[in-house]
């Protein structure tokens, strides 16, 4: 057991007179008071613009902002200049997709998987549209797993970029990204990992995975909204043109020309999200204190427990593989996921119902949508009991 609940003020609130059971962590995680306090402290004591003025407040804010890069880099085993702060995972992916929109040619290929979130499909559709490059999708089997043999055939000398989720936000599948990166590199392709659902829940080491780019968001890992991360290998980032242009990303500007600042600042135009960076720092401190291994272990235990309980309910169909993170998508026979979610909500249980920004995957599974329960380390077995009991109420009301 991880004793963390007391740190999360929101977890003690009530919803419709019932105790909140928050099981929508794959959408966004709740924030501990350490993160909220850090942001409050920033605004109350040293708010000022970074990398500009020489006054004391700016020095403190700049130190904190730079330290956030350093901590984030350490967290994923990267170098400080390899960590770019963005708005969110989506923007991080867009920066790289935009680079390829400027550099791919007609016969080049992009490899994605059938389980991608819209954020790792739509930017590439745009890249393909602009360049004429072709998108190929790695298929999933009936358990929602990728077939490594099929991927080996799919990635060819024409492939320039392979972009895939480390962990599926719908099925909870953990993809063999290290093996896939090896296959891609052997063919001369680069690899982008969407780490939105993995970085918050397990140890992720970019050197170990040998990925070229990694995208993730602070808000799914206890941090504030509005700040995300793009990791890229230094030698690659140096040769990629900026995405946004303006202040702070330049070295020298004339009326005719501009040269770019050093990494990572070249990619961070304009006043950045300083309070967000301070919040992300505090979130990383918090996660490190508990330990990512321990978080993974606890969530694994919760997931096993939940799957066992859910499987015993008649009419419940669970999607996805046996080996997974704390994400469980399911349907209750003859009840629409939104009706399930609404009735669970009346019992204080927050889950997500719908297509989870993965419409092509839903179509593939032959369903309109699903109910998704997703856990974090502060969830408990008792909460899963409340959730399962609330499902019995859904069945009673809907006559299912």
């Amino acid at each position, binding site marked *: 057991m991880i004793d963390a609940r007391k740190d999360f003020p929101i977890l003690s609130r009530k919803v419709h007179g019932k105790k909140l059971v928050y099981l929508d962590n794959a959408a966004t995680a709740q924030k501990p008071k350490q993160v909220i306090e850090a942001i409050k402290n920033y605004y109350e004591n040293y708010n000022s613009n970074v990398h500009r003025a020489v006054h004391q407040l700016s020095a403190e804010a700049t130190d904190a902002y730079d330290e956030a890069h350093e901590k984030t880099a350490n967290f994923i085993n990267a170098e400080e200049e390899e960590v770019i702060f963005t708005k969110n995972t989506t923007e991080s992916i867009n920066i790289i997709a935009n680079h390829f929109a400027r550099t791919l040619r007609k016969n080049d290929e992009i490899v994605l998987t059938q389980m991608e979130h819209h954020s790792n499909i739509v930017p590439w559709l745009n890249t393909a549209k602009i360049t004429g490059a072709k998108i190929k999708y790695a298929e999933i089997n009936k358990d929602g797993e990728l077939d490594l043999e099929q991927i080996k055939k799919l990635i060819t000398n024409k492939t320039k970029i392979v972009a895939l989720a480390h962990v599926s936000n719908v099925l909870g599948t953990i993809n063999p990204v290290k093996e896939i990166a090896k296959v891609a590199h052997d063919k001369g392709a680069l690899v982008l990992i969407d780490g939105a659902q993995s970085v918050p829940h397990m140890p992720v080491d970019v050197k170990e995975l040998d990925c070229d780019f990694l995208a993730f968001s602070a808000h799914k890992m206890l941090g504030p909204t509005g700040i995300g991360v793009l990791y890229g290998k230094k030698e690659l980032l140096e040769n990629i043109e900026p995405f946004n242009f303006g202040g702070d990303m330049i070295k020298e500007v004339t009326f005719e020309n501009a040269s770019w600042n050093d990494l990572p600042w070249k990619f961070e135009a304009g006043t950045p999200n300083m309070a967000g960076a301070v919040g992300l720092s505090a979130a990383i401190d918090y996660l490190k204190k508990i330990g990512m291994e321990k978080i993974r272990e606890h969530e694994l235990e919760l997931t096993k427990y939940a799957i066992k309980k859910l499987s015993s309910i008649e009419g419940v169909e669970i999607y996805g593989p046996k080996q997974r993170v704390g994400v469980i998508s399911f349907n209750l026979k003859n009840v629409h996921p*939104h*009706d399930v979610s*609404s*009735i669970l909500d*009346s019992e204080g249980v927050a889950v997500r119902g719908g*297509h989870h920004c993965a419409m092509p995957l*839903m179509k593939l599974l032959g369903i*309109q*949508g699903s109910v998704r329960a997703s856990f974090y380390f502060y969830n408990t077995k008792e909460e899963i009991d409340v959730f399962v009991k609330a499902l019995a109420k859904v069945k009673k*009301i809907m006559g299912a």
Partner: protein
Amino acid sequence: MDLAEDMYKEELLEHYREPQNYGEIKDTDVKYKDFNPVCGDEIEIYADIKKGVIENVKFTGKGCAISQAAASILTEHIKSKKIEDVKKMSNEEVLELLPIKVSNLRIKCGLLALKAIQKGLLIYERKKHE
């Protein structure tokens, strides 16, 4: 009363389980399909029009109990009504017809059928003018 039982009253669920006017009309005047992109609800509406009056109306669709029951209730309500009146129907009027109070989060489900019929009628009239 319990919040969920309030939202899923038997009267609503009856319309969901056994909807009125469910099915297609072939070769009809109005045929329009609309979606709620967020939740994936879909309603396709069909209507025969005679002298500016909705003579027959049917729908098919997939989705949550609220969206499907609302389509059943709305099609019952607009049968034999002038298309001018249906075009003017407000969201509030439709929500009033439902046997439940729809929460803010589910209003789009409750209004999908109205959206479909009103858009379908607009297209019907535009075609007639051509």
